């Protein structure tokens, strides 16, 4: 899952696009997903994300991420589907009773919510996989006028996701070496068994943040205006891609307004 926030180096058309174009693409997909509730349309939007990943040559790396999102969406559907009682009953978990009732409205609604969640979340790893963090910071600061400390904080938190996962792995190993078990059948005990993992992770994270702050301050962080060594220009091709995306977006919304796509 470290691929969620990791840049994957390839020499592709998608990689060469400006981060601003890719941010626009991601934002457009998120917006469109809110318009539609037909699971098939949402599945189509998800497919478009997978095609972009394929064009960027990072589909293989993205597959575990997509698989994880599908699992989360599945759990989300499972937790919701039995609580929607509107519509015609399709089946019940225990035949002849109302226990575990699944209705047509519930099924379609939950599928739509799950698919929407996947579309909203799936474009982000593709964006991060095809964009170097430094380029993203420059765009956030220079073009979107986000204050540099906030932009830096945002990208740094992403940068440390894989590091924290490695730390967590070490902590799990250290605690299981002392016979600590995480697979407790008792729910309360299982919840409490997270403490031996969470506390060391928190402590090491705070220490890491402190060290990083000192290291940055000693290298002049926050002193005077910044300059950028490399600036990824917004080129004509970026403008063309944005126009195409905008036209496609408007077309989708128009079809939705006309009732062709729901």
């Amino acid at each position: 899952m470290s691929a969620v926030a990791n840049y994957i180096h390839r020499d592709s058309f998608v990689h060469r696009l400006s981060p601003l174009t890719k941010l626009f693409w991601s934002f457009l997909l998120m917006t469109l997903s809110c318009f539609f509730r037909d699971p098939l349309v949402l599945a189509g939007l998800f497919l478009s994300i997978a095609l972009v990943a394929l064009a960027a040559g990072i589909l293989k790396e993205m597959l575990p991420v997509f698989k994880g999102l599908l699992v989360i969406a599945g759990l989300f559907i499972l937790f919701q589907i039995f609580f929607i009682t509107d519509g015609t009953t399709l089946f019940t978990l225990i035949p002849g009773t109302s226990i575990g009732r699944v209705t047509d409205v519930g099924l379609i609604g939950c599928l739509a919510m799950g698919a929407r969640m996947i579309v909203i979340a799936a474009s982000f790893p593709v964006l991060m996989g095809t964009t170097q963090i430094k380029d993203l910071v420059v765009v956030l600061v220079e073009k979107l006028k986000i204050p540099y400390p906030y932009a830096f904080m945002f990208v740094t938190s992403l940068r440390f996701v894989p590091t924290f996962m490695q730390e967590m792995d070490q902590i799990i190993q250290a605690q299981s070496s002392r016979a600590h078990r995480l697979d407790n059948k008792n729910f309360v005990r299982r919840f409490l068994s997270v403490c031996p993992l969470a506390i060391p992770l928190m402590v090491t994270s705070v220490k890491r943040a402190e060290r990083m702050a000192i290291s940055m301050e000693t290298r002049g962080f926050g002193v005077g205006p910044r300059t950028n060594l490399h600036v990824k220009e917004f080129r004509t091709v970026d403008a063309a891609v944005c126009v195409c995306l905008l036209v496609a977006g408007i077309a989708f919304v128009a079809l939705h307004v006309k009732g062709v796509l729901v």
Partner: protein
Amino acid sequence: MIKVANLHYKYQSGLEVLHGLSFRIGKGEFVALIGQNGAGKTTLLKQFNALLKPTAGSVGIAGLDTAKSSTGELSRKVGFLFQNPDHQIFMPTVAKEIGFGPKNLHLSKGEIEARVAEAAQAVGLTRYLGHNPLLLSKGQRQRVAFASVLSMQPEILVLDEPTTGQDYQEGIEIMEMVKKLNEQGHTIVFVTHDMELVATYARRVIVLSRGRVLLDDSCRNVFYHPEILKQTNLFPPQIARLAQAFAGEGLFKRPLTVDEMYEEILALASRPEGAKNVCCS
């Protein structure tokens, strides 16, 4: 005690780190695992308590096959001291931290208290039992981690760079504790990049290079094979290198430590022709 047979290990990423290792470590041995970064030392250590399981081949610990045992089960036999104590410390007091492992073994309260007291005494932390371990120095935190391993009363102690980040004195004190435990019958396997420590404490050295055993011999024999060690970017301790520099003169036997060389110089000086040799050299 430890039986490694044709051990292969490949990470999920497809990177194969261990390529058919085979060796045995007997009860009460004091073994150093050395090799350059990426040689597979830590990967091998983690096989001993089933944190990692063989891709092929087998690892036997006191008759138990690690492929069929969990880390928890093996924790009674193998104590694992990690490089960074902060990866395990979470309890509000040193006593509770040391008692965490025995508590997981469902021991009685009296037994836990006895083990905590014994382990704290072994590492010299008795007066810190009521302190918050997170507020102690790095050296003391490493001692807490060590005590929390000792409180499990394992027969085998596996130490992954136990002196990293410690000052010289702390490092020596930790290794002296380990030596004492070895004298009490514990089997010790440790990884380090400090060749002086290896020369001072280990009796047997296994040199790993790119996931294979390059040398497996007594400490003295290993350090007097500098040409083989060089293949894996390792250098013998300075005393051994100094003795090798005089190899042509036939002055020294094969000293590894300052004390050993001092003894040899004294012995040389006590012989009339030896004294002349020492002065001229």
